Protein backbone atom coordinates (compact mmCIF):
# COMPACT_ATOMS: atom_id res chain seq x y z
CA UNK A 1 0.00 0.00 0.00
CA UNK A 2 1.32 3.42 -0.97
CA UNK A 3 0.00 6.83 0.08
CA UNK A 4 1.27 10.33 -0.60
CA UNK A 5 0.63 13.22 1.79
CA UNK A 6 1.29 16.91 1.41
CA UNK A 7 1.97 19.74 3.80
CA UNK A 8 1.98 17.95 7.12
CA UNK A 9 4.72 18.33 9.68
CA UNK A 10 6.01 17.19 13.02
CA UNK A 11 5.92 20.22 15.32
CA UNK A 12 7.33 18.72 18.53
CA UNK A 13 8.56 15.48 20.06
CA UNK A 14 8.65 14.58 23.75
CA UNK A 15 9.97 11.27 25.10
CA UNK A 16 9.15 10.18 28.65
CA UNK A 17 11.25 7.48 30.29
CA UNK A 18 11.01 5.64 33.60
CA UNK A 19 13.75 6.89 35.94
CA UNK A 20 14.83 3.36 36.87
CA UNK A 21 17.73 2.12 34.78
CA UNK A 22 18.83 -1.54 34.84
CA UNK A 23 22.25 -2.78 33.73
CA UNK A 24 22.69 -5.84 31.54
CA UNK A 25 25.74 -6.83 33.62
CA UNK A 26 23.54 -7.08 36.71
CA UNK A 27 20.96 -9.26 34.94
CA UNK A 28 23.21 -11.94 33.40
CA UNK A 29 22.72 -14.22 36.39
CA UNK A 30 18.94 -14.23 35.82
CA UNK A 31 19.51 -16.38 32.75
CA UNK A 32 20.40 -20.07 32.74
CA UNK A 33 23.28 -19.59 30.33
CA UNK A 34 27.01 -19.36 31.11
CA UNK A 35 27.75 -15.76 32.13
CA UNK A 36 30.71 -15.46 29.74
CA UNK A 37 28.51 -16.53 26.82
CA UNK A 38 25.77 -14.05 27.74
CA UNK A 39 28.23 -11.18 28.19
CA UNK A 40 29.50 -11.66 24.62
CA UNK A 41 26.12 -10.37 23.41
CA UNK A 42 26.77 -6.99 24.96
CA UNK A 43 28.92 -5.74 22.12
CA UNK A 44 27.21 -7.51 19.23
CA UNK A 45 23.58 -6.89 20.16
CA UNK A 46 24.11 -3.57 21.92
CA UNK A 47 22.80 -4.86 25.27
CA UNK A 48 24.01 -2.44 27.92
CA UNK A 49 21.23 -0.89 29.98
CA UNK A 50 17.50 -0.40 29.70
CA UNK A 51 14.74 1.61 31.33
CA UNK A 52 11.93 -0.38 32.90
CA UNK A 53 8.64 0.91 34.27
CA UNK A 54 7.43 0.20 37.79
CA UNK A 55 4.97 -2.70 38.00
CA UNK A 56 2.17 -0.22 38.74
CA UNK A 57 2.93 2.11 35.78
CA UNK A 58 0.88 1.88 32.59
CA UNK A 59 1.11 3.54 29.18
CA UNK A 60 -1.53 6.13 30.03
CA UNK A 61 0.59 7.25 33.03
CA UNK A 62 3.51 8.04 30.71
CA UNK A 63 1.19 9.69 28.17
CA UNK A 64 -0.56 11.86 30.78
CA UNK A 65 2.83 12.85 32.22
CA UNK A 66 3.99 13.89 28.73
CA UNK A 67 0.85 15.76 27.67
CA UNK A 68 0.65 17.63 30.98
CA UNK A 69 4.33 18.57 30.61
CA UNK A 70 3.57 19.95 27.15
CA UNK A 71 0.56 21.90 28.38
CA UNK A 72 2.33 23.28 31.45
CA UNK A 73 5.32 24.37 29.39
CA UNK A 74 3.19 26.03 26.69
CA UNK A 75 4.13 23.63 23.90
CA UNK A 76 0.48 23.77 22.89
CA UNK A 77 -2.93 24.89 24.17
CA UNK A 78 -5.80 22.59 24.96
CA UNK A 79 -8.05 24.28 22.39
CA UNK A 80 -5.55 23.59 19.58
CA UNK A 81 -5.91 19.82 19.98
CA UNK A 82 -8.20 18.11 17.46
CA UNK A 83 -7.41 14.49 18.20
CA UNK A 84 -5.50 12.15 20.50
CA UNK A 85 -4.22 8.98 18.88
CA UNK A 86 -2.62 6.33 21.09
CA UNK A 87 -0.68 3.48 19.47
CA UNK A 88 0.33 0.66 21.79
CA UNK A 89 0.49 -3.07 22.45
CA UNK A 90 -0.13 -2.45 26.15
CA UNK A 91 -3.60 -1.05 26.84
CA UNK A 92 -4.29 -0.13 30.48
CA UNK A 93 -7.65 -1.93 30.14
CA UNK A 94 -9.71 -3.49 27.38
CA UNK A 95 -12.04 -0.52 28.05
CA UNK A 96 -11.69 2.46 28.45
CA UNK A 97 -9.08 3.36 25.87
CA UNK A 98 -5.78 5.09 26.59
CA UNK A 99 -6.69 8.08 24.41
CA UNK A 100 -9.86 8.61 26.47
CA UNK A 101 -7.95 8.25 29.74
CA UNK A 102 -5.49 10.91 28.53
CA UNK A 103 -8.40 13.12 27.44
CA UNK A 104 -9.93 12.87 30.91
CA UNK A 105 -6.77 13.24 33.00
CA UNK A 106 -5.42 16.14 30.92
CA UNK A 107 -8.80 17.86 30.93
CA UNK A 108 -9.10 18.00 27.15
CA UNK A 109 -12.22 19.11 25.29
CA UNK A 110 -15.12 16.73 24.55
CA UNK A 111 -14.99 17.99 20.97
CA UNK A 112 -11.93 15.97 20.01
CA UNK A 113 -11.45 12.54 18.49
CA UNK A 114 -9.86 9.86 20.70
CA UNK A 115 -8.54 6.80 18.94
CA UNK A 116 -6.47 3.80 20.06
CA UNK A 117 -4.58 1.66 17.56
CA UNK A 118 -3.02 -1.72 18.41
CA UNK A 119 0.40 -1.78 16.78
CA UNK A 120 3.92 -2.58 17.87
CA UNK A 121 7.19 -1.82 16.11
CA UNK A 122 5.51 -0.04 13.16
CA UNK A 123 3.39 2.03 15.54
CA UNK A 124 5.03 5.36 14.75
CA UNK A 125 4.55 4.98 10.98
CA UNK A 126 0.96 3.77 11.40
CA UNK A 127 0.29 6.64 13.84
CA UNK A 128 1.72 9.19 11.41
CA UNK A 129 -0.37 7.75 8.58
CA UNK A 130 -3.58 7.95 10.62
CA UNK A 131 -2.71 11.43 11.85
CA UNK A 132 -1.94 12.76 8.37
CA UNK A 133 -5.22 11.39 6.99
CA UNK A 134 -7.11 13.00 9.86
CA UNK A 135 -5.30 16.33 9.52
CA UNK A 136 -6.83 16.70 6.05
CA UNK A 137 -10.16 17.19 7.86
CA UNK A 138 -8.96 19.07 10.91
CA UNK A 139 -7.60 22.22 9.25
CA UNK A 140 -5.87 24.25 11.96
CA UNK A 141 -6.12 21.71 14.75
CA UNK A 142 -3.17 19.66 16.02
CA UNK A 143 -2.95 15.96 16.69
CA UNK A 144 -1.30 14.41 19.70
CA UNK A 145 0.23 11.08 18.69
CA UNK A 146 1.13 8.81 21.62
CA UNK A 147 3.45 5.86 21.06
CA UNK A 148 4.12 3.93 24.22
CA UNK A 149 4.58 0.47 25.66
CA UNK A 150 5.41 -1.17 28.97
CA UNK A 151 6.31 -4.52 27.47
CA UNK A 152 8.62 -5.42 30.36
CA UNK A 153 5.41 -6.33 32.22
CA UNK A 154 4.83 -9.02 29.62
CA UNK A 155 8.35 -10.42 29.21
CA UNK A 156 9.87 -13.10 31.41
CA UNK A 157 12.96 -11.94 33.31
CA UNK A 158 14.40 -15.43 32.73
CA UNK A 159 14.07 -15.20 28.96
CA UNK A 160 17.40 -14.13 27.49
CA UNK A 161 15.89 -13.99 23.99
CA UNK A 162 13.53 -11.19 24.88
CA UNK A 163 14.23 -9.49 28.21
CA UNK A 164 17.63 -7.79 27.65
CA UNK A 165 16.38 -5.74 24.74
CA UNK A 166 13.06 -4.56 26.19
CA UNK A 167 12.63 -0.91 27.15
CA UNK A 168 9.59 0.96 28.50
CA UNK A 169 8.42 4.51 27.90
CA UNK A 170 6.30 6.70 25.67
CA UNK A 171 6.79 9.39 23.08
CA UNK A 172 4.27 12.09 22.29
CA UNK A 173 4.53 13.74 18.89
CA UNK A 174 2.58 16.86 17.94
CA UNK A 175 1.49 16.94 14.29
CA UNK A 176 -0.04 19.74 12.28
CA UNK A 177 -0.92 21.02 8.83
CA UNK A 178 1.49 23.49 7.26
CA UNK A 179 0.03 25.15 4.17
CA UNK A 180 3.05 27.38 3.65
CA UNK A 181 5.52 24.53 3.96
CA UNK A 182 6.17 22.13 1.13
CA UNK A 183 6.52 18.64 2.56
CA UNK A 184 5.76 15.88 0.08
CA UNK A 185 5.50 12.71 2.11
CA UNK A 186 5.73 9.22 0.64
CA UNK A 187 4.47 6.29 2.70
CA UNK A 188 4.56 2.58 1.90
CA UNK A 189 3.33 -0.22 4.17
CA UNK A 190 3.29 -4.01 3.90
CA UNK A 191 1.72 -6.59 6.20
CA UNK A 192 1.71 -10.39 6.35
CA UNK A 193 -0.56 -11.89 9.00
CA UNK A 194 0.48 -15.43 8.01
CA UNK A 195 3.80 -14.85 9.76
CA UNK A 196 2.19 -13.15 12.77
CA UNK A 197 3.10 -15.86 15.29
CA UNK A 198 6.75 -14.78 15.11
CA UNK A 199 5.87 -12.12 17.71
CA UNK A 200 3.17 -13.24 20.08
CA UNK A 201 1.72 -13.04 23.57
CA UNK A 202 -0.37 -16.26 23.62
CA UNK A 203 -2.50 -15.56 26.73
CA UNK A 204 -4.34 -12.52 28.05
CA UNK A 205 -6.94 -11.92 25.36
CA UNK A 206 -10.36 -13.50 24.91
CA UNK A 207 -8.90 -16.50 23.03
CA UNK A 208 -6.86 -17.61 26.05
CA UNK A 209 -7.61 -15.57 29.17
CA UNK A 210 -4.89 -15.32 31.82
CA UNK A 211 -5.18 -18.03 34.46
CA UNK A 212 -2.92 -19.73 37.03
CA UNK A 213 -2.06 -22.25 34.29
CA UNK A 214 -0.97 -19.59 31.77
CA UNK A 215 1.27 -18.01 34.42
CA UNK A 216 3.35 -21.17 34.94
CA UNK A 217 6.97 -20.68 33.86
CA UNK A 218 8.12 -23.37 31.47
CA UNK A 219 11.57 -24.33 30.25
CA UNK A 220 11.44 -23.73 26.51
CA UNK A 221 14.12 -26.37 25.92
CA UNK A 222 16.69 -23.79 24.85
CA UNK A 223 17.57 -22.49 28.32
CA UNK A 224 14.89 -19.77 28.32
CA UNK A 225 11.96 -19.76 30.73
CA UNK A 226 8.64 -18.10 30.00
CA UNK A 227 4.89 -18.56 30.50
CA UNK A 228 1.97 -18.28 28.08
CA UNK A 229 1.31 -14.86 29.62
CA UNK A 230 4.68 -13.67 28.32
CA UNK A 231 5.64 -12.16 25.01
CA UNK A 232 7.92 -14.16 22.78
CA UNK A 233 9.81 -13.16 19.70
CA UNK A 234 11.14 -15.84 17.36
CA UNK A 235 14.46 -14.07 16.87
CA UNK A 236 15.61 -16.06 13.84
CA UNK A 237 12.28 -15.69 12.03
CA UNK A 238 12.11 -11.95 12.67
CA UNK A 239 15.75 -11.44 11.67
CA UNK A 240 15.26 -13.32 8.40
CA UNK A 241 12.01 -11.48 7.70
CA UNK A 242 13.74 -8.09 8.11
CA UNK A 243 16.70 -9.05 5.92
CA UNK A 244 14.42 -10.45 3.21
CA UNK A 245 11.63 -7.86 3.12
CA UNK A 246 13.03 -4.47 4.09
CA UNK A 247 15.83 -3.97 1.51
CA UNK A 248 13.56 -4.61 -1.52
CA UNK A 249 10.87 -2.38 0.00
CA UNK A 250 13.40 0.44 0.40
CA UNK A 251 14.58 -0.05 -3.16
CA UNK A 252 11.07 0.17 -4.59
CA UNK A 253 10.20 3.13 -2.35
CA UNK A 254 13.23 5.08 -3.58
CA UNK A 255 12.27 4.28 -7.16
CA UNK A 256 8.60 5.23 -6.68
CA UNK A 257 9.46 8.54 -5.06
CA UNK A 258 12.28 9.48 -7.46
CA UNK A 259 14.76 9.69 -4.61
CA UNK A 260 18.27 8.32 -4.29
CA UNK A 261 20.14 7.16 -1.21
CA UNK A 262 22.31 10.27 -1.20
CA UNK A 263 19.22 12.52 -1.05
CA UNK A 264 18.59 11.27 2.48
CA UNK A 265 20.15 13.07 5.44
CA UNK A 266 19.08 10.55 8.09
CA UNK A 267 17.75 7.00 8.14
CA UNK A 268 15.58 6.86 11.26
CA UNK A 269 14.71 3.22 11.80
CA UNK A 270 12.95 1.15 14.40
CA UNK A 271 15.55 -0.14 16.90
CA UNK A 272 15.29 -3.91 17.46
CA UNK A 273 19.00 -4.47 18.22
CA UNK A 274 22.37 -3.36 16.88
CA UNK A 275 23.17 -6.60 15.04
CA UNK A 276 19.94 -6.59 13.03
CA UNK A 277 20.37 -2.92 12.10
CA UNK A 278 24.01 -3.37 11.05
CA UNK A 279 23.10 -6.32 8.83
CA UNK A 280 20.17 -4.40 7.38
CA UNK A 281 22.42 -1.43 6.63
CA UNK A 282 24.91 -3.73 4.88
CA UNK A 283 22.22 -5.48 2.86
CA UNK A 284 20.53 -2.26 1.73
CA UNK A 285 23.81 -0.34 1.26
CA UNK A 286 22.78 2.30 3.80
CA UNK A 287 25.48 4.60 5.22
CA UNK A 288 25.91 3.71 8.90
CA UNK A 289 26.90 7.28 9.83
CA UNK A 290 23.41 8.41 8.81
CA UNK A 291 21.61 5.55 10.61
CA UNK A 292 21.70 5.89 14.41
CA UNK A 293 21.66 2.47 16.13
CA UNK A 294 22.15 3.35 19.78
CA UNK A 295 18.68 3.18 21.32
CA UNK A 296 18.90 -0.39 22.66
CA UNK A 297 22.23 0.28 24.41
CA UNK A 298 20.84 3.39 26.13
CA UNK A 299 17.17 2.74 26.84
CA UNK A 300 16.21 -0.60 25.25
CA UNK A 301 13.94 -1.32 22.28
CA UNK A 302 11.05 1.09 22.82
CA UNK A 303 8.71 -0.64 20.35
CA UNK A 304 6.56 1.91 18.46
CA UNK A 305 8.25 4.81 20.25
CA UNK A 306 11.74 3.92 18.92
CA UNK A 307 11.79 6.40 16.04
CA UNK A 308 10.79 9.54 17.98
CA UNK A 309 13.21 8.52 20.74
CA UNK A 310 16.10 7.97 18.28
CA UNK A 311 15.48 11.51 16.98
CA UNK A 312 15.38 13.05 20.47
CA UNK A 313 18.39 11.04 21.68
CA UNK A 314 20.73 11.81 18.77
CA UNK A 315 19.47 14.74 16.75
CA UNK A 316 17.75 17.06 19.17
CA UNK A 317 19.88 20.16 18.49
CA UNK A 318 20.03 19.66 14.71
CA UNK A 319 16.31 19.06 14.35
CA UNK A 320 15.46 22.18 16.35
CA UNK A 321 17.53 24.36 14.02
CA UNK A 322 17.44 22.81 10.56
CA UNK A 323 15.30 20.66 8.35
CA UNK A 324 16.38 17.27 7.01
CA UNK A 325 15.16 14.81 4.41
CA UNK A 326 14.51 11.64 6.39
CA UNK A 327 13.82 8.01 5.59
CA UNK A 328 11.78 6.42 8.39
CA UNK A 329 11.41 2.66 8.44
CA UNK A 330 9.95 0.16 10.87
CA UNK A 331 9.37 -3.58 10.94
CA UNK A 332 7.93 -6.02 13.44
CA UNK A 333 4.72 -7.41 14.88
CA UNK A 334 2.00 -8.32 12.45
CA UNK A 335 4.28 -8.98 10.66
CA UNK A 336 4.48 -5.46 9.27
CA UNK A 337 7.11 -3.42 7.48
CA UNK A 338 6.96 0.12 6.17
CA UNK A 339 8.86 3.18 5.03
CA UNK A 340 8.15 6.90 4.94
CA UNK A 341 10.10 9.71 3.32
CA UNK A 342 9.46 13.11 4.83
CA UNK A 343 11.19 16.32 5.83
CA UNK A 344 11.63 16.68 9.58
CA UNK A 345 13.14 19.69 11.27
CA UNK A 346 12.81 23.20 12.62
CA UNK A 347 10.92 21.54 15.44
CA UNK A 348 9.41 23.78 18.07
CA UNK A 349 10.45 21.42 20.87
CA UNK A 350 12.35 18.14 21.14
CA UNK A 351 13.19 16.61 24.50
CA UNK A 352 13.55 13.43 26.53
CA UNK A 353 12.49 13.67 30.17
CA UNK A 354 12.49 11.22 33.07
CA UNK A 355 9.45 10.39 35.15
CA UNK A 356 9.06 8.57 38.44
CA UNK A 357 6.86 5.99 36.68
Amino acid at each position, binding site marked *: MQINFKNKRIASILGVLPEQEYLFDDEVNNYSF*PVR*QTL*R*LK*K*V*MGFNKHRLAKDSSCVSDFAVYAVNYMLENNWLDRDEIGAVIAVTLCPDYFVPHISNIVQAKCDLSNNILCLDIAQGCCGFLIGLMQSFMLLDKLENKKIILINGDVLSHKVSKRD*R*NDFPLIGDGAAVTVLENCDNYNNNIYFEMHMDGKRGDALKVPAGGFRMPCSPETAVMQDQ*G*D*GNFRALDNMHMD*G*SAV*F*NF*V*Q*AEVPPMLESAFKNSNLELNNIDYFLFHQPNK*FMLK*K*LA*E*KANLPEDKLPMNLVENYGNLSGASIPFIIALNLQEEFLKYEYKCCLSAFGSGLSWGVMFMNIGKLEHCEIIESNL
Partner: protein
Amino acid sequence: MEEILKILEEIRPEFDFKASSNFIEDGLLDSFDIVTLVNILEEKYQIKIDGLDIIPENFSSAESIFNLVNKNKN
Protein backbone atom coordinates in the same frame (compact mmCIF):
# COMPACT_ATOMS: atom_id res chain seq x y z
CA MET B 1 37.61 -26.79 9.36
CA GLU B 2 39.74 -27.23 12.50
CA GLU B 3 39.72 -23.47 12.98
CA ILE B 4 35.93 -23.43 12.81
CA LEU B 5 35.69 -26.20 15.42
CA LYS B 6 38.08 -24.28 17.67
CA ILE B 7 35.88 -21.15 17.45
CA LEU B 8 32.76 -23.21 18.20
CA GLU B 9 34.41 -24.78 21.25
CA GLU B 10 35.35 -21.33 22.46
CA ILE B 11 31.71 -20.15 22.16
CA ARG B 12 30.18 -23.23 23.82
CA PRO B 13 33.02 -25.08 25.63
CA GLU B 14 30.53 -27.39 27.36
CA PHE B 15 29.64 -29.19 24.09
CA ASP B 16 31.46 -31.73 21.92
CA PHE B 17 30.89 -30.39 18.42
CA LYS B 18 32.78 -33.28 16.79
CA ALA B 19 30.17 -35.70 18.14
CA SER B 20 27.20 -33.83 16.68
CA SER B 21 25.75 -34.31 13.21
CA ASN B 22 23.54 -31.21 13.44
CA PHE B 23 24.51 -28.38 15.81
CA ILE B 24 21.07 -26.75 15.62
CA GLU B 25 18.91 -29.87 16.03
CA ASP B 26 21.17 -31.16 18.82
CA GLY B 27 20.81 -27.84 20.67
CA LEU B 28 24.52 -26.94 20.56
CA LEU B 29 23.93 -23.53 18.98
CA ASP B 30 21.03 -21.16 19.54
CA SER B 31 20.21 -17.98 17.65
CA PHE B 32 22.39 -15.82 19.92
CA ASP B 33 25.32 -18.24 19.51
CA ILE B 34 24.91 -17.79 15.75
CA VAL B 35 25.04 -14.01 16.17
CA THR B 36 28.22 -14.36 18.27
CA LEU B 37 29.72 -16.75 15.73
CA VAL B 38 28.95 -14.43 12.80
CA ASN B 39 30.67 -11.60 14.64
CA ILE B 40 33.79 -13.71 15.34
CA LEU B 41 33.95 -15.08 11.77
CA GLU B 42 33.60 -11.61 10.27
CA GLU B 43 36.42 -10.25 12.43
CA LYS B 44 38.74 -13.23 12.00
CA TYR B 45 38.36 -13.61 8.24
CA GLN B 46 37.66 -9.93 7.44
CA ILE B 47 34.43 -10.79 5.65
CA LYS B 48 30.83 -9.61 5.69
CA ILE B 49 28.28 -12.40 5.90
CA ASP B 50 25.13 -11.58 3.96
CA GLY B 51 22.12 -11.15 6.27
CA LEU B 52 20.08 -13.55 4.12
CA ASP B 53 22.69 -16.26 4.74
CA ILE B 54 22.25 -16.07 8.51
CA ILE B 55 19.84 -18.98 8.68
CA PRO B 56 20.10 -22.07 10.92
CA GLU B 57 20.90 -24.41 7.97
CA ASN B 58 24.16 -22.59 7.33
CA PHE B 59 25.30 -23.20 10.91
CA SER B 60 24.30 -26.86 11.29
CA SER B 61 27.79 -28.34 10.83
CA ALA B 62 31.45 -27.28 10.69
CA GLU B 63 31.34 -27.97 6.97
CA SER B 64 28.32 -25.71 6.33
CA ILE B 65 29.97 -22.91 8.35
CA PHE B 66 33.22 -23.45 6.41
CA ASN B 67 31.27 -23.21 3.12
CA LEU B 68 29.53 -20.05 4.31
CA VAL B 69 32.85 -18.39 5.14
CA ASN B 70 34.29 -19.36 1.75
CA LYS B 71 31.21 -18.12 -0.08
CA ASN B 72 31.52 -14.72 1.56
CA LYS B 73 35.29 -14.61 1.02
CA ASN B 74 34.55 -14.85 -2.67
